[in-house]
């Protein structure tokens, strides 16, 4: 056996071990959701049950937390997508000498531990609301949206920057030459071009917000989201209902991913069909012109 095939065999074994490490714990947890004992265990597997899912959905705190998490997630998308887009568009327009400083400021939330973002947001708004008397602003939901958006906007900005690098500025100039206003160029050229990035930025913003714990646990104050309820439960002890929650989250995400893939394929087919129709129409036009000429 040559040394190369020994290497590839070793590599194969390593890859298997690696993915066992990646999936093993989650598979074990998933199985405990369907086993009857009240302490999450897979071995011995006593009997198959779905009771833990019923326990989970009957849990009022969890369901309240879920609604709150979804609300916060939607608000974070609404804040961080426009802010990230503005941050990315600003990047090329800041004076060259100030650009690296600007970059440092807007990227710093990505490199700051989440707990510190949560703490500093709460500290700042507690002082500000006490000084100005804007008491309603010192609210768990508002602070969580602000704290999460500060770093999620940096994520979305990085996505938009990558897309903007491929933007063809001659399109913009052509539209301006044809008499479009600046606002029209923004709405009818830049935004449609950015649409795929807006889609993926929204998805990433929502998911990062939904699963965030470190920042949220400070910023949420006395209120609660799904993840903070979950953390509280885990401190009290473990039950298979929590495994059931994990199984549900995975099932929902997998369905979401499949739906997304399906919609993307359908859109691609649609685009192909439109391109085909357009070229047919063009051909028909050309034929008509040719016949006229003849």
């Amino acid at each position, binding site marked *: 056996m040559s040394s190369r095939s020994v290497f590839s065999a070793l590599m194969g074994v390593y890859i298997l071990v690696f993915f066992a490490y990646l999936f093993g714990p989650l598979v074990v947890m998933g199985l405990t959701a369907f086993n009857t004992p009240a302490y999450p265990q897979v071995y011995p597997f006593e009997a198959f049950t779905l009771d833990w899912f019923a326990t989970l959905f009957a849990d009022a705190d969890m369901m309240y937390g879920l609604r709150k998490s979804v609300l916060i997630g939607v608000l974070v998308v609404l804040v961080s997508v426009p802010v990230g887009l503005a941050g990315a568009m600003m990047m090329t327009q800041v004076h060259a000498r100030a650009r690296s400083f600007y970059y440092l400021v807007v990227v710093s939330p990505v490199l700051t531990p989440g707990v510190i973002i949560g703490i500093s*947001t709460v500290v700042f708004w507690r002082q500000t609301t006490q000084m100005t008397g804007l008491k309603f602003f010192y609210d768990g939901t508002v602070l969580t949206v602000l704290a999460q958006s*500060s770093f999620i906007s940096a994520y979305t900005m990085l996505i938009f920057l990558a897309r903007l690098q491929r933007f063809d500025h001659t399109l913009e100039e052509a539209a301006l030459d044809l008499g479009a206003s600046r606002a029209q160029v923004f709405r009818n050229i830049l935004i449609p071009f950015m649409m795929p990035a807006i889609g993926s930025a929204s998805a990433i913003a929502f998911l990062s917000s939904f699963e965030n714990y470190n920042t949220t646990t400070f910023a949420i104050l006395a209120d609660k989201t799904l993840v903070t309820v979950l953390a509280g439960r885990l401190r009290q002890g473990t039950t298979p209902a929590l495994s059931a929650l994990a199984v549900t989250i995975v099932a929902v995400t997998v369905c979401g991913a499949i739906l997304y893939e399906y919609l993307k394929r359908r859109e691609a087919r649609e685009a192909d069909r439109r391109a085909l129709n357009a070229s047919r129409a063009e051909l028909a036009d050309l034929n008509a012109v040719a016949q006229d000429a003849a």
Partner: protein
Amino acid sequence: MHSSIGQVVIYVIPAMVLAWFGWLAWRDRRDPANAGRQGFVARNGWPVAGFLVIAVGFWTIFMIVLPLFSMIDLSFRPKLPPPQWGGPKDFYTLDNYRYFLFGSTTSTAAWNVTHLTAFALTILTSIAITALDFVICYPIAYYMAKVARPNRLRLMMLMLIAPYWVNEILRAFAFRILFSSQGIINNVLMASGLIDQPVDFLAADVALYAGLAYAYLLMMMFALYNALDTLDGNLIEAARDLGAPWWHIHAFIAIPHAKPGIASGSTLVFMLTAGSLAAPLVLGGPRSLWFTPIVYDRFYQAFNWQQGAAYALILLVACVVFVLGVLRLFKLGLAEIAR
């Protein structure tokens, strides 16, 4: 120094930076060399220009800079009931930092052993876990970037991302099930006769370290993959043709090329590990020491926000020092790693 001075400084610094930005733009406009170029408002149109200024301004000033400044400011203040804030007793002090070092704001006789060990342990463990993640990820990332065929690559990508759809706390919970005294690992070890008493992996922090290494693996993986993906395969071929042994190819070609990826992966993994709160809460034994739960307790158990702010700032400084250290070590700029 009275705290009201700080309140002024906090607002003056961003205002001065804005003024500097404005001055740069104004000077450019006056420069005859730029006579033909349009200004910011003319270039974007006023609705878009307004949107850009308001969105970026609110984000950078009210969501990034001012919160950080007020945390720094608070960490130097004494603990006072809210009505006395800004009052005659509100002078800047180092008490909160003194407490971190000595466990008391007045005496310097004894060190604050619990907090200092927790801090040192957190930093050292995070460095070790970062290195471990690099070792685990490098072969896989190299395989994906340079060996795998496109179909296999897509499958591996999907399999890498899938476990991270489950959130951080539930991932930690999975490790707790695995390592608990009635967990599957203890069951297997007992059944095979290797041990006759269940091992308390949680108290020994084995579960915590395994969970932490697992938690942020993906960051390292994608950073390394992105860097190795741009490595020209011909270089590897050339080295192999010239008779370089396999480890030369990695040590002198692949790893030097992947430097920016290693740096960005390491900073992210270190920062996330040192700042992680979920894994230590779920997987830590009763005597485990991790710094972030201590910071949390300063706020919501001891209700000493000033001290909590000081502790948070210490953690932040440690992270910044680590990032700068990595940049110095790899001779890179910030823009190269934050991609």
